[in-house]
């Protein structure tokens, strides 16, 4: 009798196994009412939230098959408990909010840099933009010309930025900052600690007006969930 019962259980498991692999799409139906939302449910047989050390934390789930992200032109699928379980995450930091070139010289290019870092579990990653409300200028209104030829050159009045880092979008040329947002960093999947360095560069000519120059640039990082 015991053997028959075991056989029955085995047959059931086989059918479940076949069912999982037969390609029937699983619907992640969100169960909700006025008082609750069950964001997802999952059939698995284990996992825990408690694995951690100083530098990491591991949340694991056992028993799922074929998990991960799939996508085509018309859809994106996040398969598995961990894919669907996570609350949206977005952190953004700017390493320094002050860039001081000091005294500019006609014989050299002055530079300073900040590093922007984004961490997100957004399915399509993130985009960080930069914009200014006005040019780098004096109180009297004289400004440092925006770089227009891709390179800030000593002896020429030019000002711009260049990025470095895998997600940097201005890695190839010194680029002017304008009043419309321009993309300085872009990553197309979730990422932990995506760092991009923005190097600000300025140079002057003998005709650049004397004075104290300043302006603010705004950095906006947006998750693409």
């Amino acid at each position, binding site marked *: 009798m015991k053997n028959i019962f075991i056989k029955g259980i085995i*047959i059931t498991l086989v059918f479940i196994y076949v069912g999982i692999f037969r390609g029937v799409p699983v619907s992640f*139906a*969100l169960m909700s009412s006025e008082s609750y939302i069950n964001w997802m449910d999952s059939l698995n047989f284990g996992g825990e939230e408690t694995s951690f050390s100083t530098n990491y934390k591991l949340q694991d789930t056992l028993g799922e098959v074929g998990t991960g992200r799939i996508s085509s032109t018309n859809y994106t699928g996040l398969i598995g408990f961990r894919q669907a379980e996570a*609350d949206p995450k*977005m*952190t*953004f930091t700017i390493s320094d909010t002050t860039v001081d070139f000091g005294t500019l010289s006609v014989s050299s290019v002055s530079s300073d840099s900040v590093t922007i870092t984004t961490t997100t579990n957004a399915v399509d990653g993130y985009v960080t933009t930069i914009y200014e409300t006005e040019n780098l200028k004096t109180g009297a209104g004289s400004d440092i010309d925006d770089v227009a030829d891709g390179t800030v050159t000593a002896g020429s009045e030019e000002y711009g930025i260049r990025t470095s880092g895998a997600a940097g979008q201005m890695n190839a040329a010194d680029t002017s900052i304008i009043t419309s947002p321009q993309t300085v960093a872009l990553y197309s999947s979730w990422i932990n600690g995506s760092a991009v360095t923005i190097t600000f560069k300025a140079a002057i000519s003998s005709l650049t007006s004397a*004075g104290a120059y300043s*302006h603010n640039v705004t950095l906006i990082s947006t998750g693409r969930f």
Partner: protein
Amino acid sequence: MEKKILFKKVIKITLASLILLLSSPLLPVHAAALTSITDTMTRLKASTVSNHTIKFVQLTGVAAGQKLKVTFPTGFVMGTVDYTDVDLAEGSTNNCTSAVFTDKVLAATPLAATWGAAVAGQVLTFTSGTDTITANKCVLIEVGLNATAGVGGDQQVTNPVAGNNLVMNLATTTAGDVNIDTGFLAVSIIANDQVTVSATVDPTFTFAISASTCALGTLTLVTVQTCSVTLTTTTNADGGYTTTVVGVVAGADLIHSNGSDDIDDATGVQVNASSEEFGIGTSDSGVDIVTESDCVGADNSAAADAQAITNTAQSVASNTVPVSAEATTACFAASAAAITTAGAYSATTTFISTGTF
């Protein structure tokens, strides 16, 4: 026999479980996930007003009478944002980057094709009257000064204190507030989202006079004698510079060596042959001193454009912007009359160049 019956029972249970297992994925989906969700803000700084540009693709569509809800994270201050400060638009496709958006007509409450838009607590709710949003199209919601359709927005949502992983929930719902499509995103609010860039350009100024002597030669009754010096200024003064000329003796600058006689100052703007006159012209224009464009040509001719040098400073060269080695020719001109006392004459003039920083 007993074993056989038990086996049959197990098989039945198995089949029943299997049918349930395989049929459950085919049940109607109660809600689907919104996709391509973004909220592009204009400021991430804590406690600062910001516009919001929210985009997402909804899979099910929004039927007449249904709702679309945006729940801002706790801490965002909705202020007095109302329907005039928000826009709702339907995209032409499900590509939120390239879609062309058509604004919906909004009012405080829905009426026919007009959508109602209202804020209650952290929730911005759009309620359809009879209008709809087609399934699988990108939806655009603007909140703040960027809401320009209809009555332009003049109120913005204020960011909370700094914090990460601030979750905004979005949903399409039935008229009875049952979720249809749902999704969420997170934003990061930071202490300061701006980088202040500063630099200093030190002032520069150089001034040179090509020579400290200028010989007019021997004056005659038939020609005007001239000589010149070049005044050169370089400066990054924002307002440029002004160079002035001033004589050391009032009204009698070209003085005889006897100390008492002199060549009279030019009375107009020309020094003419046979008239006892002394003056200065300049290659610059728009200054106090008259322009003498060709000092060399004036030499040995009957007249030169020049005017008196006084003991009050008169501008002889200037510009209103920074200049690099800007050169101006200061042209001295003199002529003698028949009664001009013979002898050696000389004058000392002073040039002062000043930057306008």
